[in-house]
Structure formats: structure tokens, C-alpha cells
């Protein structure tokens, strides 16, 4: 069942792709949400029914201009403000990125490793992951020394765990059950 946020996200994704500015709009929406995160009062103002629509538009216009963002984002923000859906903006952003990934054939991967991976290792891993998912993979890399060695990769809802910590945990469970 599609949520309200998905409807907004799908509409924005279609517009962004049709204007060939999907990555730009993706980045702009991320920056805008980061701005709202830094200033919660700004989000309250844009979502408040006590503030007139014209004033909200003026604020959004000013922010977009200061960010140097596209008209696509400005118009989208106007629609969200007019429909009083500013509270759904984080959810819309997630659904928008997922929709863009789907439309662009991109798979997001979270790669957690015990140490920094070399470029060769990253490329090697990406090649395998793209073959596994059948999509172009964009990875987000994180460090977690608790893994001891190896790495944990999550693509969508699938997790590939090659960490020493997990192997030791399996060993511990096997020893306990004996």
C-alpha cells in the first residue's frame, strides 16, 4: 500500500528525471532537510497553520535562493507547504531517493568494515555486489573496529556478513549448544 509520502516522492522523482536533474534534486533535498535539522524552528514555521501561505512561500523562496537550489525543489516545496505536509518531508525524501534508485537502476549498499578498505578492495567489492544485485551499486562506507576483521555488507534487506566477530559469535553458540 502506497503511503502519502510515496505519492509526493514519485511525483518529484518523475519531474527530476524528466528534467534530467535527478542527482541535483536529490542533493538539494538532502541539503534542505539538513538545514531543517539544524534549525527546527524553521520547520515549525513552515509547518505552522498560524503562518500565512504567502509568508511560508517567501521563506521557502529565500532559502532556496540562498542554497542556490533549482526551481524544481522550490516548486515542490511550495506544493508540500500548500498541502500542509511539511511534517512528512523526511519520509518523502527517503521515498524519493528509493524511487530514484529504482528508476536509475541503483542499489544502495552499506559497507561496514573493521579497517579502511583500499580502492582496489572497494572496486572488487562493488563489482561483486553489482553482479549480485544486478544494479549499479552506490556504497556508503563505515568503520567499526568491533568487527575485529572482515566486513558486513547490507544491500536492501540482504546482509552479507564476513566479519570475524560474527564468526566468533557463531563459534560461541556452537560451543554453548554442545
Amino acid at each position, binding site marked *: 500500500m502506497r503511503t502519502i509520502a510515496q505519492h509526493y516522492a514519485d511525483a518529484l522523482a518523475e519531474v527530476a528525471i524528466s528534467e534530467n536533474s535527478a542527482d541535483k534534486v536529490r542533493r538539494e533535498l538532502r541539503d534542505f532537510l539538513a538545514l531543517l535539522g539544524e534549525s527546527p524552528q524553521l520547520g515549525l514555521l513552515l509547518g505552522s497553520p498560524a503562518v500565512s501561505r504567502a509568508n511560508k512561500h517567501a521563506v521557502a523562496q529565500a532559502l532556496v535562493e540562498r542554497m542556490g537550489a533549482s526551481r524544481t525543489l522550490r516548486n515542490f516545496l511550495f506544493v508540500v507547504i500548500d498541502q500542509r505536509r511539511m511534517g512528512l518531508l523526511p519520509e518523502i525524501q527517503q521515498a524519493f531517493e528509493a524511487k530514484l534508485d529504482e528508476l536509475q537502476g541503483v542499489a544502495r549498499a552499506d559497507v561496514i568494515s573493521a579497517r579502511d*578498505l583500499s580502492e582496489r578492495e572497494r572496486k572488487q567489492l562493488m563489482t*561483486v555486489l553489482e553482479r549480485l544485485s544486478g544494479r549499479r551499486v552506490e556504497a556508503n562506507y563505515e568503520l567499526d573496529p568491533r568487527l*575485529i576483521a572482515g*566486513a558486513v555488507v547490507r544491500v536492501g534487506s540482504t546482509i552479507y556478513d*564476513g566479519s570475524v566477530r560474527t564468526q566468533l559469535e557463531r563459534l560461541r553458540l556452537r560451543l*554453548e549448544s554442545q
Partner: protein
Amino acid sequence: MKLLAGRWSLGDAGVRIIGLTLFGAVSLPALAQEGSSDVTDMPIGTVFRWLNFLLVFGVLAYLIVKYGAPYFKARAESIAKSIAEAAQTRAAAERELQEWSQKLSSVEREIEEERRTAQRESAADRERIRALAKSEVEKIQQAARAEIAAAERAGAQELRAIAARLATDRAGALIREQMSAAAEAALFGSFVGELERTVS
């Protein structure tokens, strides 16, 4: 006399007094003449004496028959009635006594029966309580054995868990200490190789 007896209701004492008065009135003149031997010695005197005697006797007999018979009859009836009542009372008392005796004997039998029943029930209760206590003891022993066995299993499991955790913690520490960049790269390469095998 008949009038007196009929009109006035004289008691027995009154009738006796009147009878004695008449007797005296008739007999006293004769006694008064006893001193003169001339008449009494004559046959006519003897006749009058007998007549006098018969008269007195008749009056006495009449009075006795008239008033004594009913009196004695009523007396006899009263006595007979009293005797009958006494007999009835006695019979009733004897019946009651017999009933009470029967009841008493029945009560004694009931008491004895109750005593025997109580003894039987008491014995049965003792046996039941003994069996129940025995069963409870067995249950408690069984539960205790099960609890001990469970505690043993839990203890053993806990020991295994502790040993496994210590072993893996120690293994992890050793791996960290001895892990070189080359070994780590080899591990990562092995992981990627497994992923490749998954693809193929």
C-alpha cells in the same frame, strides 16, 4: 325418713344420727321397763321385745339398703374406676417405660454404632492422610529431583556459556593482537570470494 331423705340432702353422718335417734326412741322405753319384771317376764313382753327388735332391725336394714348400698356401690365403682385408672396409668407408664427402655437400648445401639463408625472413619482418615502424606512426600522428592536435575543442567549450560564466552573473547583478543594487514586483507579477499561464489 323418706321425705327427709328426699327433700333434704343429708349426708351420711346425718343419716346415721337420725337412725340412732329412732333406735333409741324405740329401744329406750323397753330398756326403761326392764326393771319391772312383771311385764317382761310375760310372753307378750317377749313378743314386743322381738317386734321392737325387728322394727329396729328393719329400720336399720332399710336405712342400710336405702343409703348404704348406693354409697358402697358408688364407693366400689369409684374404687374400681380408680383401680382401672391406676391400671391404665400403670399400663401407660409401663408402655412408656418400655418405649423409653427400647429407645434407650436403641440409643445405646446407635451410640455403639456411631462409635464404631467413628472408629472406622478415623482409621480410614488416618490411612488416607498417611497415603496423602506419602504421595506428597513422593511428589516433593520428585520435584526436588527434577529441580536438582534442572539446576545441574542450567549450571552445566551456564558453565558451557561462560567457557564459550571466555574462549571466544580470548580468541578475539588474540586475533586482534596477531592480526596483520596482510591477514586482514586475506580475510576480506576470502569474504569477497565467497560473495563471488554466491553469484556463480
